[in-house]
């Protein structure tokens, strides 16, 4: 069991994450009904306001607070209790992040920031919204540096040794996050804030979008890497085996530092201000991310096969039936991984230059991020929640909670299959994203899109409703395990942090030489961004005034 003070820190982070989850999923429910023309909002509430809240609260706030809760617990467990300075800075980071969250959320609720989660200029929110975003990022940096400080103390006391896998992966994720945030901080501080407060009249739209996506794509990996940490470090322990390969796990993580950042242009493939060469280069670099992703897939299947064979599984796939399907900690994460197969494949399609033409700005993209961050990441976090909160609170994870957990995971899966399949198919037909209900002036082509059994707003709404029910079950489990479930007194009732053993005896030391990876990452970023960014600044078009379309 980790120190009480560290547990409190982690629990506060997870608590805030689930408050954001509650409001964010409610926003999702309202959206599917509005798009189905089954719900009319009151005059003071706007579709785009709800859409912004849904995106920001789930994709940014829920994920980030949960990730820090997970990191804090794992770092305290694998490297030992935090020192007073680490603890202090972790709290400062938490409060600054929370202050930013509250400011940004208040502006969305006040109707001053319906600029959607990507906050593309020239849509202009209140300046305080951008200040909130900046504080949010700065807060995460403070929390990150606190964890780096904890790691450095451990390294000093354990000279020449590789750090435990969990700590290594945490530091990898943090390095990537800090580099990635430079883009969004630059655009928010130097472009959006002066513009939103009226200190400058116009904004360079293309530059702001480019700096946003410098951050926006690695943000995806900031969600995904903690989920991968659970897959690499937690799952083998649940299955009763060691980490498949310590070197492979570490190598795949450092490759993410290299290849998750210099790739933002694949989100901007339809934009005129960037020449095809630079777009193509970044598409190639994007495809490099497939390498560590498939290394992870291989490693997971190998872990399953070794565990299944250990339990008596025979033949080519006999091991599959020998996995602990009744263990909700495993089943949840397994389903999360399964969703990532079409999710990852969809990502390759999105990034494939011409194929991007087919799916760009369509509902396909919405379907895509619901089966990447919305399920593989979110459901992995759900699977972690089932034991992480009881571990931190010292409460039991009772039988009824286990049954509810299973119901929650199954309903989430069913809801997501319905909603996301409908979104993918509608997107392929041409249905746009980011729009409220539209009758398309009864145009026959548009009407045809929504005629199928799956390509239907009703299917999407049913899926969304099931997802909301699932989310509420999860909130119930969170409240119970945080405050109400009986305390675990007997050792058999104590919930443990399942952290697998990882054989580091053959792991090369250079994998933990951060300067190699940071140096290579900077080099790749310079190659991919230096020239196109300098062109963008030197040949900047006239800036745009702000627009408030809501």
């Amino acid at each position, binding site marked *: 069991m980790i120190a009480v003070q560290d547990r409190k820190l982690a629990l506060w982070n997870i608590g805030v994450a689930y408050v954001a989850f509650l409001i964010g999923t409610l926003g999702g429910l309202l959206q599917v009904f509005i798009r189905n023309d089954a719900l009319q909002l009151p005059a003071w509430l706007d579709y785009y306001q709800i859409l912004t809240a849904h995106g920001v609260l789930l994709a940014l706030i829920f994920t980030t607070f949960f990730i820090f809760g997970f990191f804090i617990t794992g770092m305290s467990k694998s490297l030992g209790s935090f020192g007073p300075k680490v603890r202090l800075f972790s709290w400062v980071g938490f409060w600054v992040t929370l202050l930013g969250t509250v400011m940004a959320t208040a502006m969305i609720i006040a109707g001053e920031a319906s600029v959607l989660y990507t906050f593309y200029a020239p849509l202009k929110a209140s300046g305080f919204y951008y200040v909130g975003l900046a504080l949010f990022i700065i807060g995460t940096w403070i929390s990150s540096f606190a964890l780096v400080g904890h790691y450095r103390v451990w390294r000093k006391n354990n000279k020449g040794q590789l750090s435990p896998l969990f700590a290594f992966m945490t530091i990898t994720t943090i390095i990537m996050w800090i580099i990635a945030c430079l883009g969004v901080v630059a655009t928010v501080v130097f472009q959006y804030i002066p513009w939103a407060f009226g200190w400058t009249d116009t904004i360079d739209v293309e530059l702001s979008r480019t700096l946003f996506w410098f951050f926006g794509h690695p943000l995806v990996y900031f969600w995904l890497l903690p989920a991968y940490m659970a897959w690499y470090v937690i799952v083998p322990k649940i299955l009763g085996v060691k980490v498949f390969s310590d070197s492979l796990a570490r190598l795949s993580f450092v490759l993410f530092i290299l290849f998750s950042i210099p790739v933002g242009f694949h989100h901007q493939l339809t934009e005129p201000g960037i020449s095809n060469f630079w777009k193509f280069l970044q598409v190639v670099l994007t495809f490099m991310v497939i390498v560590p992703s*498939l290394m992870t*897939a291989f490693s997971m299947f190998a872990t399953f096969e*070794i565990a299944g064979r250990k339990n008596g599984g025979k033949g080519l796939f006999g091991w599959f039936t020998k996995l602990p399907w009744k263990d909700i900690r495993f089943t949840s994460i397994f389903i999360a991984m399964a969703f990532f197969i079409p999710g990852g494949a969809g990502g390759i399609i999105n990034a494939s230059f011409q194929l991007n033409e087919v799916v760009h700005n369509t509902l396909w993209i919405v379907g895509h991020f619901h089966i990447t961050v919305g399920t593989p990441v979110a459901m992995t976090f759900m699977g972690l929640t089932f034991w992480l909160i009881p571990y931190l609170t010292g409460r039991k994870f009772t039988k009824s909670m286990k049954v509810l957990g299973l119901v929650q995971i199954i309903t989430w899966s069913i809801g997501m299959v319905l909603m996301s399949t409908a979104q993918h198919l509608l997107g392929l037909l041409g249905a746009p994203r980011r729009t409220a209900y539209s009758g398309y002036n009864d145009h026959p082509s548009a009407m045809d899109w929504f005629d199928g059994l799956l390509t239907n707003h009703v299917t999407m709404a049913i899926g969304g409703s099931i997802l909301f029910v699932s989310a509420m079950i999860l909130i119930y489990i969170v409240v119970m395990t945080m405050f109400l479930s009986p305390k675990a007194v007997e050792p058999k009732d104590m919930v443990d942090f399942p952290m697998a053993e990882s054989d580091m005896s053959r792991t090369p030391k250079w994998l933990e030489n951060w300067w190699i990876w940071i140096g290579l990452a900077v080099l790749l970023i310079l190659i991919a961004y230096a020239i196109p960014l300098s062109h963008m600044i030197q040949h900047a078009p006239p800036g745009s005034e702000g627009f408030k379309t809501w």
Partner: protein
Amino acid sequence: MSQESREPEPNLKGTLVSVFIVGLIIVVMWVAVYLLYVAR
């Protein structure tokens, strides 16, 4: 030269086939959208 004692290699045939299936799903989805792109 010292002979390192190694544990027997685990049987990972199922893993090999599984990753091929993942690869196949990627290729099938990609080709499907590519054909849609060409058809338009």
